[in-house]
């Protein structure tokens, strides 16, 4: 199934949601991603990824409370769903497996 696989950026976004815990809404996710990666994260890109993650069932969302900021509009907060957690863990395992099998590769010295 195509939908079950996590793309690289999807994984990053999902991880960021997890790291932001209860404060994970689109703008915050963008800012956080920029901080982690050093690249600019466009709202348009992030927004579509969030939408896709939700469609795949990897993330859940709910609307927050209205405040006077943002023109009175509510925020949509995201959290990682169970399936999302499974996918993240699996992806991490896959990577670690591969890392482990790279022969003679000195992690400390390589950088």
């Amino acid at each position, binding site marked *: 199934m195509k939908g079950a696989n996590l793309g690289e950026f999807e994984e990053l976004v999902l991880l960021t949601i997890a790291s932001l815990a209860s404060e994970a*809404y*689109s*703008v915050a996710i963008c800012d956080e991603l920029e901080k982690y990666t050093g690249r600019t994260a466009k*709202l*348009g890109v992030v*927004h*579509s990824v969030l*939408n*896709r993650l939700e469609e795949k069932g990897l993330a859940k969302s709910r*609307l927050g409370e209205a405040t006077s*900021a*943002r*023109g009175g*509009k*509510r*925020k*949509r907060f995201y959290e990682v769903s169970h399936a999302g957690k499974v996918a993240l863990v699996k992806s991490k395992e896959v990577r670690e497996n591969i890392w482990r099998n790279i022969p003679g590769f000195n992690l400390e010295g390589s950088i």
Partner: protein
Amino acid sequence: MKQQPKATPPRWATRFLHWYCRPRLLEDLEGDLNEYFERNVARKGVRSARLIYILDVLKFLRPYTIRKIEFFHFFIHWIMIGSYFKTSRRSLVRNKLFSLINIVGLAVSMSVGLLVISIVSDLYSYDDFQDKKDRTYRIITKTVENGQTSETNLASTSIRVGEKIKESIPAIEYVTAMRAGFSGDAKVGNSTVPIEATWADNSFLKVFRFPLLKGDLETALKEPQSLVLTEKTAEKLFGESDALGKTVRFDSTIYTVTGVVQNIPKLSHINFQALISLASIDAGHNDADLHSWANIWQNYVYVTFPETIDATKLQPALDRLSKQENKTLTNRTVSVSMQPMKDIVLGGSLMNNIGPTFAPPVMWTLCGLAIVVILSACFNYTNLSVARSMRRSREVGIRKIIGAQKSHVLGQFMAESVIIALLALVFSFALFMVLRKEFLDLDKHIADVFSLNISIQNILYFILLAVITGIAAGLMPALFFSKMNALHVMKDASSMKIFRRVGIRKVLIVVQFTLSLIFIAATLIGYNQYKGLVTFNLGFKTENIINLRLQGNKGNVLAKEIAQIPAVKGISQSMMITSLGSKHGTNLTYETDSSLVWENQVDEHYLPLHQHQFLAGQNFTARPEKGKESEIIVNQQVLKKFNIGDQNPEKALGKIVSVSGQQLAIVGVVKDFHYGSLENRIEPVMFRYSSEPDRYLNVKIVSQDLPATLESIQKVWRKVDKVHELDAKIYDEQIEEAYAQFSLILKIIGVIAFLAICIASLGLFGMVVFTTETKLKEISIRKVLGASETGLIYLLCKGFLLLLVISTVIALPVTYLFFDKVVLTKFPYHQAISISDMLGGSLIVMLLAFFLIGSQTVKAARNNPAKVLKSE
């Protein structure tokens, strides 16, 4: 310090976002964009923040954000249409006055629209019965005389083109050549019928679909002296009996009927009573001139192509043909091109055109006028609906609370206006039937050109017009209602700002009245100009002159008979009637100069009868036979053009000029007069003597009783000519007829002006009634507090009067400039625009409006305040 107002993102971008975005995604997305916007305002300034916001809104237009089309909503419209209909009907019945204003306005304006639709549809369906309409082309000609720069565009061409074109373009399917202008008296047995016919070659009936009822398509027009009749002509000549194979005599030539075609449909640009084979002209003597490349004045050539050929790419081949053939010409160049048959009627003016033509600008102007009138009625609807929105706000509120969405309310009000427009269409159709008859009777040419049939296609267009009108009228009110906030309305309807849209409404009223005033001022100015044209001092007298077309009879014989009538004061003969627009010209040579000069051939009575003024010299003295002339009379322009006798009339006398190979002495110089129409400047004109010009008799009468005189002339005519109908016209009426197109345009604009004023006044009336009704309490309270009646009337009127004044201030200068700078520059001999005319027109409109406003405000101001206030 005052706080800076908070920067906001551009509203239209937000609205656009609202429009396209899925409701589920909308709120947080808009919030995100707002957050970024605020951030960017702080960082980069308001301007670039707004720009980024707009770009972001556009960038978010992606498949996953776009709202799905909600079929369910459409479905709801269908379910609700019964309810819409019911509420619309109730609201129509409840407000009878406003419904009446709306329906009458829409019906009247749409009837004009229907008329224009039928006119345009007629024009486009010309020649539709020709099955090869799309692939038939007419060869048209452009010619320039050597040494001149102005080119003449002709619908006619040379027969030679028809003979040569197939060599240049082998792809041509059929070529046909025809020659217009045969007219003669057909004699069958003892009866004589005058007939106008067209010469045509044998392919004519293959190119054009004029179905043969009798006769053979392959050979009908092949042999010389073949004659093909239409059904109607055949019946005239032979009655019920079979015409095929019978003979018809014109003068001494005998023609054989080889075919009978169906009567020609009305919407055909080619029209004939009979066809004569083109070969008949050549029979007996081969006329070389007829087949020359320069003989381009009377012949028409049509070609058809197979469907696979793109005829637009064939011009180079025609250019090569023109170039080759032009080698044989010395005094002019001729070049031919193709005109699609479907463009002939709307193709603009070509000289020697056959069939009706209609200039596209005139057609578009007609459409424009109809649209203006319809829009005016739409404005009424919009104005009244928005103004009275308070009355229906509760209905909308309840609908919204029950669950109607914006689109539903929008749909409801659009449906309502479309229903009203369709209702109006029923009335307007009845009006259209009247208007149609009036239009066809307006001028005898109109009935020839238009049929204005009501076809299924036209009825569909009518319905389409009604629907579009309904949408145009209802859009603004519908948007207004759909935006209403349900809670606000239900809580306190009076808090609604009913006068919030006063600005737009005022603008609409001003536009309506400005247009009405422009129309009426244009009509009045136009009427004055037309009067000026008809009564213009032409340089000679036309009063009490009857012009009689001789139609082949001997002028002298008839003149002698007519002179017996007591009321006849004098008779002269001429080749043509001047000042009606037609022209005849011949080259005149003086010393080394040679140039075209307009001419008229007249007898010795003509100049005195028409009271032409001699500046020098006198009338013809010699009475030469044809071809042995020795004298000529010219006007001042001739002296000026050739510089004869230093332009001094006395010195010019006796000078010799050469015309048609004859040496003529100038014996008289007449004062300049109008030979052509008043649209042109006065040009050089000469009078030549002819004892029997054999075209027209000019009969000067003294009688006050014109019909009786005409009757006695008719009696005399009957004695001399038993075949032809008398064709006698009063000169002054002929001049009026020559400018009939102007009077026609005037009548049309006049009617439209009248309608526009009616509609605008209806709208104004509605607004005044509404305003006074809403302000009734205010007036009563003012009255109780001691306001005078005049004061109240002034208070109610001044707003409307101000609007009228603004319209006048806009309309009058616009009309004046339009006529002064655009229209009248085309008429060298126009009248000055009189300011009093224009003011008079606006005064009428103002008085009408004042009456409408006054009647209502006086009624309101005279109300008993106790009665009004008690009912609270």
